[in-house]
């Protein structure tokens, strides 16, 4: 029951965000992530944003992969 995907918040209205994933957009309630704002990436799960994605952390992880590749 834990399928969640990253999607980007395009707009927010009444606590419900429009989020985009490669050109397909979904409604996502922000009840569980009240801090999320337009431009943020959130984890979308059953119509709710359950977490805001930390871009800095993501880039860090990716750079570890790059470093490993270069070894």
């Amino acid at each position, binding site marked *: 029951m834990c399928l969640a995907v990253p999607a980007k918040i395009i707009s927010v209205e009444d606590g419900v965000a429009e989020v985009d994933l490669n*050109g397909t*957009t979904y409604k996502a309630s922000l009840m569980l992530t009240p801090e999320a704002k337009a431009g943020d990436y959130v984890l979308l799960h059953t119509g709710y944003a359950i977490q805001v994605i930390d871009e800095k952390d993501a880039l860090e992880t990716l750079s570890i992969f790059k470093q490993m590749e270069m070894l």
Partner: protein
Amino acid sequence: MDKTKILLAHGSGGRLTHDLITKHLVQSLSNPLLNKLDDAAVFESKGKTAFTTDSYVVNPIFFPGGNIGKLAVCGTVNDLSVMGAIPKYLSLAFIIEEGLDISALEEIIKSIAAAAKEAGVEIVTGDTKVVNTGKADKIFINTAGVGFIPEGLDISGANARPDDAVIVSGTMGDHGIAIMAQREGLNFKTAVESDCAPLNGLITDMLKVCPRIHVMRDPTRGGLATTLNEIAGQSQVGIELNEESIPVKPAVGGACEALGLDPLYVANEGKIIAIMPEKDAPAVLSAMKAHPYGKDSAIIGRVISPNPGRVSIRTPLGALRILDMQSGELLPRIC
């Protein structure tokens, strides 16, 4: 008081049926065979003849990229074409739920006429039934089709041979995702349109460069994965795909990620799979890419001897896994 909605009486066989047929159907689809309104259409035929049928129950009946009428023509045209036949004559049978807006029916008939014109086929015989509210879902359409197969072709799901190349004519899953986006209760929007199209023109171009094509099939319900499994079973061969070379639109991928679906199981209505000797593949591929309905064509795999009846897929990491038939309904899942 002119009628704006379909009533049961429109299907009673009486004058209202007669008027519906002559006013709406014969006028829009007019051709000498249909206009006779006999119990069967009569035409001359000769040689290898292909005959197929499909019923269309798509919900919603109007969707981005088409409607149930266009679908009903394209689907049957495609089932004839993938057998190598030149589609010629279609039958058209409506089951209409009482209460359908007559304007909706008119629009559907208009699309049928346009699709038939594009495909170069004639609707020559038909039927209209009306059932009570709640006994059907707005409108169901059945078409059957007849086409003639030129000499020298031998195309069948049973003809795949080891070392054949497997080509698809474009991106996978467009139709299914376009339809799902229209469904109540699935809160997503997408720019993806149904790929619904008549493919006889594309197929003619392909057969021109290579009459030796072994298998063609349109991966509709059940998608690419299911259709390839059927072919593998019919031909008793294995099929090995390369996951990275299968074209999928990003928005279709995005929709599938969130719904827990695999685009390889999602329906297409304007795509074909073609299987042919490897040496013919490049010529066929470039003929396909030159046609508007084949511009995203790609070689996605090959036929192998091992694992007869099985389809396997090479993942981007280089592993090989089974690609099974669809099981059960295609349900959005959240796991």
